[in-house]
């Protein structure tokens, strides 16, 4: 378990990243904002899962299981999306 300072620091970073997503669509082109938002969302998810849910401290098998679930979602969405191209 991390200490309170680390949790607080991550909280601040999460707020900044959340604001970043909003700001991107105000100042950049749609494509750039889209790509940057996806990157920020991934970063936020990794921070929350890794530190707040303590996934970093759990056995790797838990991470693999969650990774498998995320893979299933991407498999379904990407393959279904591709099927109508």
């Amino acid at each position, binding site marked *: *378990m991390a200490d*309170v300072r680390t*949790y*607080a620091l991550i*909280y601040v970073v*999460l*707020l900044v990243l*959340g*604001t970043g*997503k*909003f700001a*991107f*669509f105000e100042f950049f082109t749609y494509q750039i*904002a*889209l790509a940057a*938002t*996806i990157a920020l*969302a991934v970063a*936020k*998810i990794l921070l*929350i*899962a890794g530190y*707040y*849910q*303590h996934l970093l401290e*759990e*056995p*790797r*098998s*838990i991470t693999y*299981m*969650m990774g*498998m*679930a*995320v893979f*299933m*979602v*991407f*498999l*379904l*969405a990407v*393959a*279904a*999306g*591709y*099927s*109508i*191209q």
Partner: protein
Amino acid sequence: MSDLPPMTSVKRWLVTTNHKDVGILYLGTALFFLLLGGVMALAFRAQMWVPGGTGLLGANEFNQAVTAHGLLMVFWFLSPFAAGFANYLVPLQIGADDLAFPRMNALSYWFYLFSGILIGISFFQGGAYAGGWTMYAPLNVPTYTPAMEATTGGNSTILGLMLFVISITIGTVNFLVTIHRSRAEGLGLWNMPMFTWSWLLTVWMMLFAFAALLAALLLLASDRLFLTQYFATEQGSGLLWAHLFWFFGHPEVYIVFFPALGIMFETFQTFCGRRLVGRKWVIIAMVLVAVQSFLVWMHHMFLTTINLEIKTLMMATTIGISLPFDLMVFALIYTMVKGRVRFTTPFLFSLGALVLFILGGITGVFLGAVVLDYEFRGTYWVVAHFHYVMVSGVTALVAGLYYWWPKITGKMYSETLGKLNFAVYFIGFNLLYFPQFLAWETPRRVFHYDGGAQFYHQLSTVGAFVFGASFIIMFATFVYSFLYGPKAPDNPWEYSRTAEWAVPSPPPLENWTGRPSYASGNLEFVEDSRAATDGGVAHSEGTATEAVADHDEEHADHASIWPLGIGIGTFVFFLGLTGITPYLVQFAEARGHSVIGTSAEPNAAYLGLIAVGLVILAYTLFKFGVEQFNVPEMAIAERWPFGGVDNTKMGVWVFLASDVVVFGAAIGAFVFLRIHMGWGNWETIPFASWPGLLNTYVLLTSSFTVIMALVFAERKNKKGLLGAMGATLALALTFMAVKAYEYGYKFSIGEYWWTSLEHSVYFVTTGLHALHVILGVLIAIFMIYRIVSVDAYLEDHRPVEFFGLYWHFVDIVWVILFPLFYLM
């Protein structure tokens, strides 16, 4: 909780949480649904005696019977019957005392039973769902079929299936935790019995596949109950349903068949008197099939407008999945060749299953080829192939029933009657299904067919009744055995190898008199009161010895009435929900919108049922939450690869993995529909992006407060814990208030969830997230009550951590929803 009443007491079966009792309940209930589905099959086979029908069933009754037959057999018989065996046998085979979460196991059963009762009731609510077990869009929504099936009963069918999936999800979590964390010392994964292996892979497939089905059903229920437009548009609705359904549906074939395969492996080993040939490779082949099962689903969509490239790819992966099955089939054949076969009833059924499966498998190859599928799709070829595969699974399950009957009941059955049963079964099966290959040009699900196929259909109908008669023989055999059969020894089979045969028939409540251990390479029962009380000795990698009390001394509870109570509450609530569509139609029409929702009239009784159901649920969930129910974790167990977390934490993570797929499928539906419409053509629904950003801040802050709650709990700081939990609750309510403002604004300008596809997707996806927030609010309120009333979580802070895991997940989902719906 109280001690368990004797088996002769009705109360015992209402309160039991013991895995063997629950297994028997599953087996008995599944057999009831087999009979129900079977009678429907006999009815529509009789209807098909002549082209155009005999008049036994009306057109819509025929559709209802065909649909309910498919749903009942696939969902309410096949998997639950296997689950019955798994409940009874998996803990015994791995050396566990019970499943990891016995009360959840009982809850899973009650949800299963009540989901089936909902299906039964649906026939009396204007007609059950009648659009086929695949529930293809747009026939599954009222827009296109208002007179035919937009009934309250149709809603019951869909909600019944949803409740069934919830039951499956609970069971999946339970078995995954149990098999991974409760194996006897020395029992590595490689050495697990083959039935347990097959069930382990089954529940892994269930975890992801049924989550996709749950998402599909949530969207469908939303369309049927609340009039959203997911499956009612010309903008990809039909394809969306097909993708979601078959992403579940193809793994479902293996979910149904794997336990049967496991029984075949067990019985072949026992009755050939030798270890399965190529055992390790068979396990690898099963793992491969489990993985590949998620890579073939679009072969069910060759006749849709998906592109040729993906069809070709799916044809290749479909052919690929037959290869591991070839290995398994040859392993079984070679086991017979290398062994000395004893033609007992269980073996005959298993051998029959193998023969039928080979035929079913070969005829399926035709359907896997794109060009042939263009011809065969929607014909009786599919019906025959499908039944040769699925009912070969039933054949193996019957083998399992004969094989384990002496263990479960303590009585031997008559081999003569058993063999007669097999002979009639096998003849009936082939007389029923083989002529359907010859009548393949008949379109499925209709009773009008070409007169030239009449002879084959009549053969098939005769076969159906012979096949049905074989089950009467089966029931008679078991009833006779139960009443008059000789007492079964612990192990009636000479070469059985698994642990359930090392205990009395039937096994005692606590399963074992000593601790089962495979540490020496063989099954032994050890008395280790000294070893288990000295705390924390590592035996080998992945084997944990924890500082808990002696195996024999720590009391385990086996009885709780609250799972039944929650089951009743949920059932009443769901039954009430089935009747709300007319009110939604009134609501829409009062606002000047014309919607097609249902042929049913408003009935206030349904609103009453919703209220009563919620009250029962609130009371029983509360009592469930405060009940002291002791389930000791095994002191010494093999836990690879999930050592280092406790059972409950692993259970929470497994549940979250399932929820990832539920939410992912709902979000994937949005992405798919938007791609179909053209990404840039999609209308953004929220009136501004600032409410989304505001709620992002709110949820992120609540994630911080909930982690602080954990910190305070660890420090045993009650005030801090209370403050942090209170702040989390306040933030959750703030989130809901912002959401209500946002929704309210849309309503004020006359926009609702039925207004357009974009509106439906926005309201349902964010609504699903809001539903998670509401559940979190209820849990937080309960936890705050416990902190205030009994100083909870100061000694054991784990529940705060588990709640945090859930709450952070809700936050993560919002991280995705915010940009998707507000910014993009």
